[in-house]
């Protein structure tokens, strides 16, 4: 209750001004039969010191990546967060501000978003980026809806190598129209989306084709060939990225003529946070600007000609167009977008290239060492960035449980998402995994497999 400043005397004076006797008279508009007669059944208030003790104890019931060696990725990545990121996002001028509706006193937020928009455009090779979406999955769903607005076609093709939870979210967003979604099966040999399958599935009803890059299995897709097929058919080409550090090395989707590029920006300086808050990024071509969901910050001048930043093109948005808006998104992930801007600025051009390369080297060292194992094989032949699938030739869950006993979070078992991959696990290695960590994983696997 220390957050409420009113003294008894304040309350008395204020009631006097209003002209009522007691605080409960303020609630006379609420009919008596729906007013509570008893206090809420909640735990009693805690002084700060006890609060900290209690919540710290709860947090200790959780394991975390400091206690374990983690090889889990799958849409949430363990990257080092430079100290400056925390220091700046803890500036309360940033985190205690609201949406910048009053630009004269919100230039900090506005300029930072403008810089974020620029950084995402540079990385993805696209023309425009919005101020953020909830996460990569909801951004993917909104991209599908946007494609349907663009060409008024009913059907959507999703690669089955798109993150399973992203596919689920797209289905949820389409609601009763979810039957219009078709999945293109991935190739069991390469772990990529077969170009000929895209050609087979696509037709005049196809609004869009959605491909993840690198895909859920870590495989780098052939965007060039797929893009050509999609555009020849007049459909919208949507590329989804869950591990954007890869863009330090990989050619940007814009270079393959992607129409919409969405993804998850958690890797850019946000903590794992058990899955949220994360950062959905959303970029597109200039020609599709007015179909894009979400907020945009634009550059303009003030009355004296000074450069400044402002929320713009708001006529697409819910507070003006109401039910005709491009989306219902209002509160987004502003602070996570700021986090990404700080992170990418600190990393800089050489930093992101080097970091991407380190990730690549760690994964390929891991893959190299896997070759020593007789009963464990890389499952797919496609090139990979920092994730790959391995085939254990035995139940994936069992192996993961055994690794956990040795203090290793040994990736995720793919059985729950792909029943046919019941002996497969998805592994991720980043700059956070030392050579020793990787060696230990290999040794433990050797032991488990009795080699």
């Amino acid at each position, binding site marked *: *209750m220390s957050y409420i*400043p009113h003294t008894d005397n*304040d309350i008395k004076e*204020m009631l006097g001004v209003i002209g009522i006797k007691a605080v409960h008279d*303020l*609630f006379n508009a609420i009919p008596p039969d729906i007013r509570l007669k008893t206090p809420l059944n*909640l735990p009693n*208030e*805690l002084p700060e010191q006890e609060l900290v003790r209690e*919540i710290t104890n709860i*947090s*200790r019931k*959780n394991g*975390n*990546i400091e206690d374990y060696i983690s090889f889990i990725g799958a849409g949430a990545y363990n990257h080092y967060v430079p100290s*400056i990121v925390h220091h*700046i996002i*803890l500036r*309360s*001028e*940033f*985190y*205690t501000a*609201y*949406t910048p509706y009053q630009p*004269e*006193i*919100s*230039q900090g937020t506005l*300029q930072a978003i*403008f*810089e974020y928009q620029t950084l995402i455009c*540079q990385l993805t090779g696209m023309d425009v980026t919005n101020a*953020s979406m*909830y996460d990569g999955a909801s951004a993917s769903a909104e991209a599908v809806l946007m494609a349907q607005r663009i060409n008024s076609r009913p059907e959507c093709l999703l690669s089955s190598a798109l993150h399973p939870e*992203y596919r689920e*979210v797209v289905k*949820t967003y389409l609601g009763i129209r979810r039957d219009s979604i078709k999945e293109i099966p991935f190739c069991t040999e390469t772990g990529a989306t077969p170009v000929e399958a895209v050609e087979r599935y696509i037709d005049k009803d196809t609004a869009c084709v959605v491909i993840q890059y690198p895909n859920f299995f870590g495989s780098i897709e052939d965007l*060039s060939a797929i893009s050509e097929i999609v555009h020849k058919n007049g459909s919208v080409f949507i590329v989804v990225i869950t591990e954007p550090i890869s863009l*330090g090395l990989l050619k940007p989707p814009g270079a393959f003529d992607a129409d919409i590029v969405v993804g*998850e920006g958690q890797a850019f300086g946000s903590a*794992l*946070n*058990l899955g*949220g808050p994360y950062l959905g990024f959303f970029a597109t071509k200039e020609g599709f600007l007015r179909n894009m969901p979400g907020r945009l910050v634009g550059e*303009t*001048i*003030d*009355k*004296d000609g000074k450069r400044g930043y402002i929320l713009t093109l708001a006529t697409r948005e819910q507070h003006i167009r109401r*039910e005709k808006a491009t989306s219902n998104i209002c*509160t*987004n*992930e502003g*602070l*996570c977008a700021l986090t990404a801007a700080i992170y990418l*600025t*600190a990393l800089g051009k050489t930093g992101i290239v080097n970091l991407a390369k380190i990730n690549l080297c760690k994964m*390929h060292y891991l893959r190299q060492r896997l070759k020593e194992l007789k009963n464990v094989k890389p499952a797919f032949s496609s090139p990979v960035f920092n994730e790959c699938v391995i085939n254990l030739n035995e139940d994936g869950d069992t192996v993961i449980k055994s690794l956990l006993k040795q203090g290793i979070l040994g990736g995720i078992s793919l059985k729950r998402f792909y029943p046919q991959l019941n002996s497969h696990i998805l592994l991720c290695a980043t700059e956070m995994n*030392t050579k020793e960590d990787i060696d230990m994983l290999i040794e433990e696997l050797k032991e488990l497999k009795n080699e």
Partner: protein
Amino acid sequence: MSSGLIFEKSSKGRRGISIPKLDVPDINPLDVIPHDVLRADIEGFPEVSELDAVRHFVNLSQMNFGVDTGFYPLGSCTMKYNPKVNEDMARLSGFSKAHPYQAPELSQGALQLMYELEGFLSEISGMDAVTLQPAAGAHGELCGMLMISAYVKAKGKPRKKVIIPDTAHGTNPASSNLAGFTVVTIKEGKGIISPEAVASVMDEDTAALMLTNPNTIGLFETNIKEIADIVHKKGGFVYCDGANLNALMGIAKLGDMGVDVIQFNLHKTFSTPHGGGGPGSGPVGVKKILEPFLPVPRIIKRGKRFNLGFNCPMSIGRLKAFYGNFGIMVRAYSYIRAMGPDGLKKASEMAVLNANYIMEKLKKAYHLPFDQTCMHECVLSDKVQSEKDVYTLDIAKRLMDYGFHPPTIYFPLVVPGAIMIEPTETESKETIDRFIAAMMTIANEARESPDIVKNAPQTTKIGRLDEVNAVKKPVLRWKP
């Protein structure tokens, strides 16, 4: 004065943070990735030192107004003080460094916290079950409307319409539309909805009525129970936008008023900071009848063990990868535990007291369209000042010169020139008195020297910005 863009401060070859040394064999990317997939350059990407970056962003922060900077009475946004300890709690390693796919046995603390938070929110709202998955209020609205859509479809008679008052937040019609409904608008003539207005449009093709209580004019919908009866009798649901829950905690439960679905804006009522536009969190509470439709996964407790439940055949599915904005849930949990039942009630009482105190004092100088006791926010208008050609926007800008963040303006749309003030409970009488004094001064200025108000703000680093220019020739990114 505008701070230069980070790209303009860039200098080729300069670097910020150091990159770890490679402890595994170096490889040439060309050996493992086809050359036509490798990128040549990231054009225009910044190259600055760590100090350059720090100074740049710290300087930007100083061009921002936040709750910690000053009074932020933005109506309908509940900009209350965000306790610092909440930030510390969200950053505990056990929470911030937990991977969403680590085994449930490693996530027992997080699952316990989520399970208990669902329980707290159920208790506060009078709903039977809660999902924490939606990432923001509008995401929660979408969740609620999708559930209603799934329900009416499961009943075999898909209904197409949703009734929404013209005072509603724009997200309400947008979310309804996204969920596949057609919006029917009703007018709130006297500030609150009349049962007759609802009865006149409620029919067998209407899936739901979507309202906000207290509403966006700051008034309690006194007829709520009668209205809910009308909707229920024709087989519809009542959705309540929980954006204004800060007025009701411990005083009344929406569940007792016939409401079937509600979203909670944790970033408003439960004191998790808005971050300059998120992240928020928009849990949804429902009555039993809609529980089977909640998104997956659900948090399940068996004995002392918590788990994630996926076996929900009627579920609308998943709204977001993983489980929602967990870090925001930790802050809200921490806030509710710190406040306790008495503290939450007191928060609502003081929020309402502050709003009525402001309304009472300001109605002497500003037009008050609905002169009755308000809840946690009040709506004034520029009717008096506009006679001198001084409008709401001018008043808002002038407030900046006096060191305040302006209230919400031009919303709700039903009040021309609306000025919507929400002081929240965390502001002291002294702060509120200073705000009232500034508003009274502006009223005087509008009468005696209107140009001062019309040329505001004069003390900010940047003046009024050219919106038209920004729209005509959109510049949405920096280019070299």
